[in-house]
Structures are given as C-alpha cells and as structure tokens.
C-alpha cells in the first residue's frame, strides 16, 4: 500500500465493475423469473407472503434506480430517499385529489413525474460536483428534505403522515386493487416494466456515455460530451424511477410518513445495491430480493437486526466489494473450467471457523441487548438455538469471547488455504484465456 496509489484512483469503481456477461442464458433466466412471479400466488397465497413479494418488487425498482447512479454513472448518492419519498408523497396527493379520475394502474407515473421534477431542480445543484463532493451534497440535500418534512405539515402530514384509499371505485372487471393479490400483480407488472426500461436505458447512447463518465470523466470532455450534463440527465432519470417505486409504495401501504425520506431509507437502498453488486445490471435486483427477505426474517427473531445488517455491509465492503453478483460470476467461471473441486476443500475448511466466529458474535450481541434491556425483559437470560446464555454471568461472556477468538485464529489459517486455492484457480484460468485468446 503506497501513498501514491492512495491518492490515485481516477476510475471510481475500479475493481467493482467487472463485466458480468449478459449472455443468452440471461434470457432463459428472465423467462423463468417471469413464470415464477406470475405463478407465485398460486402456491403461497397468504397475505404476509404476498406483501413481502410486493415489497421486493418496490425495492427492486428503487435499487435499480439507485444503480443508474452508482454502478452506471459512478455517482455515490447518500440521499436517494429524496426521490423515492417525494414520489410517494406526490402519488398520495394525486390519489386523494383526483378521486379515481386517473386509473390506479397509471398512478405510479404521478410519483415518477413528481420525483422527476424534483430531480430537475435538485439535480442541478448536486451534479455541479462529482466524486466525494457529490456524495456529501446528496447527503446534505437529503437531510434538508427530511427536516423540511416536519416544517410543512400540509404537504407531509407531520408525524402521522398522509393516508389515502387506493380503492376508488368498482374498476374494470372488478379489478379495483382492493385485494392484496390484485396489488401484487400491479406491482409485478410495474416492476417488469421498470426492469425493462432501466435495462434499455443502459443500451442507449446516454447510458453508454454515462459508463464512460464513470470510468473517465475527463476523457469524455475530449470526445465532445459534457460529463456534468450526462450526470444531470442520469440523476433526473434515476429520480423518475425512484419516484415510481415511491408511488407504488404509497399505493401498497395506503399511508406515507416522513420515514420514506429518512437517511435510513437512503441507507437501505445503498445496502441493497451494493450487497447485490453494482457492477452488473442484475446485482441490485439480487440485493433487493435478498435484503428485503433478510430484513423480515432477521427482524422477526432479533431486535438487534440493524447491527447485523451494518456488520454484514462492512464485511461485504471489505471482502466482496463486487457484491453477490460478482461472487456468482467468478464462481461460474471456475465452474465452467471444471475447477470448483480445487476450491471446495478450502471452503469446507473455512466453514467451521466462520461458524464459531458468527456464533460468538451473535451470542455477544444478543447478551448485550438482553443486559441493556434487562429491566424491561425482567431477566438478562436468553436462549439461542437451545443454548442458554446469561448476560449477567461472566462465564457466558467468556464463552462467547473464546468462540470469537478461536474462530478468528482458525479463520486466519483457513483463509490462507482459500486464497491459495484462488491463486491456483486464477492462474489456470488465465493460462486458459491466453491459449484460447485471439
């Protein structure tokens, strides 16, 4: 690690953006996804699952709109909730104002249009700068809008938010979106449209020049383009899609509160896009699905779930900055070269220390939580998978600490094996590439 390399790094995303090929296999996968989406309610027609699937759909659109900035244009925004949230409020106001004058099916467009308008205004300010400064300004603007929400209760509804009723009439053929099932198909359809639209956008001159701006904004100026204008257009368009996601959120929950504008909302979309992988188009979709499910699953067993999410995010940043999409892509390449067997033993070897480490961390976190809330809970004792622990007993803490220490130590040994395995495999892969190359 040398100082010059610390200061360098003109390509903002360097190793994150590693081409994940979008081959014909992609089309087959998409077709399968569509079949699953359409058929899903036949098998799990419980409102809990349906609303989870709905949330996945919304978040997919939101995450894709975010990645138009981070993955495609190299713009790191910490305030993307602004467009999502304002889209949600705009939709709710339109819903309450028109009383069915506009079909519900088209109402998310109101959110998109509202967010687009704000994008036209805010984007002008944020895209005056790029890089780190853009990140800071997006954070500042996000805070500004979030704190305005309490200042203008007429528009934002104050603490209680504003609510509405999406059922405005009998609808065509009885489709009035009164049931969760009808809402599910509406969201699924919009998600499909938005995936197709955001994908198409990557295949246009603007989309490609946005990639060029991400890679090397200076050079873009010397092929006749204005990087600032490209960034601006991308912010506005990304705001449009975030607004559609917000609009669907408003329709789905029939209430919009200031939380949609919060830094938490901005954080979760970063988490989804990054964990999924910003270097490929499908990465944010994977992230949206995974994080939304995890959110529900982990939150149902522990109130300390934000801690686990934060830790998970940091570990991904440090060890897998390409996200799940790039992990999958790398292993697919290894699989195709029939080399996976060289990696598996070291993976199995690493599994034990990882289990020890994770168990130790979970035990500590849960004990800490139980101890801090001992008064409300009445006790600092707890059970994790049948293992009794007591936050008030020193022994439990020693056990957890020992588990972490042992895990770390063994992992450092197993880690060497894993990286050794990867070095072997990538050496072979490179040799193959040279042989079969041009």
């Amino acid at each position, binding site marked *: *690690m040398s*100082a*010059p390399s610390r200061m360098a790094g003109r390509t903002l995303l360097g190793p994150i953006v590693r081409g994940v090929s979008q081959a014909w296999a992609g089309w087959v996968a998409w077709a399968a996804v569509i079949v699953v989406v359409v058929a899903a309610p036949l098998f799990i027609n419980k409102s809990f699952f349906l609303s989870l699937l709905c949330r996945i759909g919304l978040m997919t659109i939101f995450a894709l709109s975010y990645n138009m900035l981070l993955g495609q244009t190299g713009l790191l925004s*910490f305030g993307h909730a602004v467009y999502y949230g304002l889209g949600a409020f705009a939709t709710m106001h339109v819903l309450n104002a028109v009383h069915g004058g506009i079909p519900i099916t088209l109402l998310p467009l109101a959110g998109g249009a509202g967010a687009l308008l704000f994008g036209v205004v805010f984007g002008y*300010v944020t895209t005056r700068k790029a890089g780190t400064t853009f990140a800071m300004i997006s954070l500042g603007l996000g805070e500004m809008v979030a704190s305005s929400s309490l200042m203008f209760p007429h528009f934002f509804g104050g603490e209680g938010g504003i609510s509405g009723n999406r059922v405005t009439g009998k609808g065509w053929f009885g489709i009035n979106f009164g049931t969760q099932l009808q809402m599910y198909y509406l969201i699924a359809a919009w998600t499909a449209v938005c995936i197709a639209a955001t994908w198409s956008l990557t295949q246009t001159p603007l989309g490609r020049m946005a990639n060029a701006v991400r890679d090397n904004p200076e050079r873009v100026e010397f092929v006749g383009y204005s990087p600032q204008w490209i960034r601006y257009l991308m912010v506005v368009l990304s705001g449009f899609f975030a607004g559609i996601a917000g609009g669907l959120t408003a329709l789905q929950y029939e209430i919009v509160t200031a939380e949609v504008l919060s830094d938490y909302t901005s954080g979760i979309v970063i988490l989804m896009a*990054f964990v999924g992988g910003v270097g490929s188009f499908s990465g944010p979709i994977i992230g949206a699905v995974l994080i939304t499910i995890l959110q529900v699953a982990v939150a149902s067993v522990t109130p300390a779930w*934000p801690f686990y999410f934060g830790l998970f995010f940091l570990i991904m940043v440090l060890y897998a900055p390409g996200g799940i999409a790039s992990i999958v892509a790398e292993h697919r390449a290894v699989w195709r070269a029939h080399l996976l067997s060289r990696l598996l033993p070291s993976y199995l070897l690493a599994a034990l220390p990882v289990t020890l480490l994770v168990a130790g961390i979970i035990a500590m976190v849960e004990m800490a939580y139980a101890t801090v809330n001992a008064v409300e809970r009445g006790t600092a004792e707890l059970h994790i998978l049948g293992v009794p622990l007591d936050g008030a007993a020193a022994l439990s803490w020693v056990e957890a600490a020992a588990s972490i220490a042992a895990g770390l130590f063994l992992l450092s040994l197993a880690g060497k094996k894993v990286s050794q395995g990867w070095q072997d495999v990538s050496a072979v892969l490179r040799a193959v590439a040279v042989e079969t190359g041009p």
Partner: protein
Amino acid sequence: MEFGLISLLNGVTYGLLLFMLSSGLTLIFSMMGILNFAHASFYMLGAYFAYQISALIGFWPALFLAPLLMGVVGALVERYGLRKAHKFGPVPELLFTFGLSFLVVEIVQLIWGKAVVDYRVPPSLSGTLFTLFSTSFPVYKGFMMMVSVGMLVALYVLLTRTRIGLIIQAALSRPDMAQALGHNVPRIFTLVFGGGAALAGLAGVIGGNAFVTEPGMAASVGPIVFVVVVVGGLGSLGGAFVASLLIGILQTFMVGFDYSLLDLARSLGIHLQSSPALMRLSVTQLAPIMPYALMVAILIFRPRGLMGARES
C-alpha cells in the same frame, strides 16, 4: 441587544465545537483524500466514553482519557478497515465509513441503550460565569470555548512548529515525495486518522454534556459538519473555521428568533385575510434547514466554497 450578545456568545461556542469536528474531517480529507462519514460517530463515541469514564473516575480524567481512547479506536479503524477498503477504490472507502457510521449507532445502543444517558457537567464547572443584563452565561460554555481555542492553538503549533507537523504538511501536499524521502506515509496516515478521531472525541467530551448524549447525536450533527466543510471549501482549514462560526452563529440566532412573515406583516400594520403556511413559518422553525440552504446557495454562486482552492 441582550438577545444579540448572548446569542453571539452561544453561537461562537457552538461554532467552535463545529470547528473541532470539521478541522479533523478536513485534515483527514486533505491528507488521505477520503471523507470520513463516520466522523460524527467518533464525536458520539467520545461523549459516551466520557460518560462512562466520568462515572467511574470523574470528569477530569475523562477529558484526557476519552479522546485518547478515541484516537486509538480511530487508528485501529484506519489500520484494519479503511486501508483494506482503500485497495478497492474511493467508493468502497466512502461506503466503509458510511456503513461504520450506521454500525456505531447500533453498537452504542447495544452497550448504553436507546435512551439519553445521564452525562452531566461536573459540579466544579456548573454555575454562572457572568450575568449579562438578565441572562446568565454558564461557566461551562466558557470552559468549552477555552478547550476549543486551546485545541486550535495546539493544532497550529503541532502543524507548524514540530517535526512531525512538518512531515504531515509535506505528506499533505505531496504524499509521493514524502514517501520518497523515507517517511513511512501509511503510518502517518494512521496517525492523522487517529488524531482526527481524537479531536472528534474531545469535541464529544465537551459537547456531550453541554447538549445531550444519546444515540441520535451523531446523526443530528454529522450532516451539518459536512455542510461546514462544503461551505468553507473542501480541504481548507481556514474555510472550515469561517464556515463553522458562520453556521454556528446564524443557527443560534435563528433558533432564538421566533418571528414569522405573518408577525412582520402584523407589526407593519398589515392584516391579512388568509395566512398561507409559508407565512406562518417562524424563523425558529427554519433554523434546521438553514445550513443546507446555505450550502445550496454556496454551490450555485461560489462552487469552490468560501476559501476552497480546488475546483471539483
């Protein structure tokens, strides 16, 4: 008059506190080229450390130990986190500090709970320093000013008069050259990051009991510190100083100025039939968004910031 003077004093106190944060942020940014989004979290951790230490052995040891501890934590974060993230480029680096800021809030809640903790001004520093007309100015505010000015002077002396300060300055302007001269630049980075964290920790020690010590304190001050840095000009210590005071004073005045356009109209003898929401907003209510509005104005009219050198 009374309102003006007291607000000015309070504003300067707040502004100096902001500068304790923005100076560390600026130093780290100019040196390492990264913006530490977890800087305000270090401020919060400093306050909690001080709370814990003063509960055990008193405020005065905490005044020294908490920043020290924060410095060690900062150095560890740089050595084992940031340096790793750096290899992947600026975005993972920024995301690392961003993720860290979320995690610190959770850690604080795990250890100290979600409620406000009872971190108080020590008895030896409570009381009134002087009374201006009818408003009293507390001793502790005077103490805060003294500590922050003292820190400023110490920082200035350190950067301009000592060997390590000169190396830091050299590394600030030309890291490659400093390394070529045989200085261990990565270690200096760790030192600077730890030092910046310690400064934030110190701000937490004296700010935590003047305001409140709670898990939301980082989120409430963090964005404002970024605004200070943007308004002052990225990478400029002087700019950060001016912007800190400006925002500190402006915001303090606005909080105390509970008048709206409607009141203005009324005092001018104009009676309006209807009063739109915008007219009824008081200056006090506008105070929270003032820093951001200022930032937007600066970006439009003077993108370099007040005293910034670099244009980007």
